[in-house]
């Protein structure tokens, strides 16, 4: 299966990149742009075919390496490979 792990800074943690992107978009004349948050996405091709087990191992990878849980939160989405 394919697991898509999205890693974002936790709420309340300063996101300098998102802030700069938001200012730039407004500067380019895009109206109605509110808060902008920037994060990472990691797409994993997993040999695992069972969704539950695939999610579990993606979960473990996120905790262990993909996300820095001191400042980041993550979410996982599964797609058939």
């Amino acid at each position, binding site marked *: 299966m394919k697991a898509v792990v999205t890693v974002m800074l936790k709420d309340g943690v300063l996101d*300098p*990149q998102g802030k*700069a*992107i938001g200012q*730039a978009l407004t*500067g*380019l004349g895009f109206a109605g742009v509110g808060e902008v948050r*920037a994060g990472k996405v990691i797409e994993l091709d997993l040999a695992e075919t069972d969704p539950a087990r695939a999610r579990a191992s993606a979960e473990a990878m996120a905790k262990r390496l993909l996300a820095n849980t001191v400042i980041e939160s993550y979410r996982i989405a599964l797609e058939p490979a």
Partner: protein
Amino acid sequence: MKPGIVLFPGINRERDMAIALERAFGRKPRMVWHTETELGDLDLLVLPGGFSYGDYLRCGAMAAQSPVMGAVRAHAARGGYVLGVCNGFQILTEAGLLPGALLRNAGLRFISADCHLLVERADTVFTAQYQRGAVFRAPMAHGDGNYFADAATLDRLEGEALVAFRYATPGGEITPEANRNGSARSIAGLLSPNLRVLGLMPHPEDLVDPLLGGTDGAPLFAALASAALASAA
């Protein structure tokens, strides 16, 4: 010709560049703020190194959208001279003034070290005071200097001989070890088809004073300055 340095928020090598230009031209370059749209009688525009907009999102992406870039484009279209170093090179590619893009260094780490550059063309206003095939030293200081373009573009660049410099060994060989950031075909510097726009990652402006370890970078600025005299005459 009159040099100007274009300043974007977060640029930080403008002082180094101003020193190198003043040494060669004997006069201070004009500083151009990113919101200016009238460049007056400037005929060399330099986009210096640094971290415009913090290198957030993509290096050079936001700077490439600033008001002054319209004027820079028009200047280039008129056949004006443009030099982009490091972040300046990244901005030129993001603005489409040079092809390709600069990706994260292959090793995923910032590299601050001297490199050696093989001169591929000595028949441009930027490189006239180097010999073709000569090798010179320059400090590099970047995290995103890994030049990328698709194969077709690379072949065209080679075919039209638009590669100005390649990473090489001190002896002038092109090796993977000498190409520390992983650039395609070891490309360190690129020219526009009319040879009037040059972008390169390393910093010749930081090697123009014997006290700082050498003057390998000086010929680039001297060449521009003497072209200036020629055009003035």
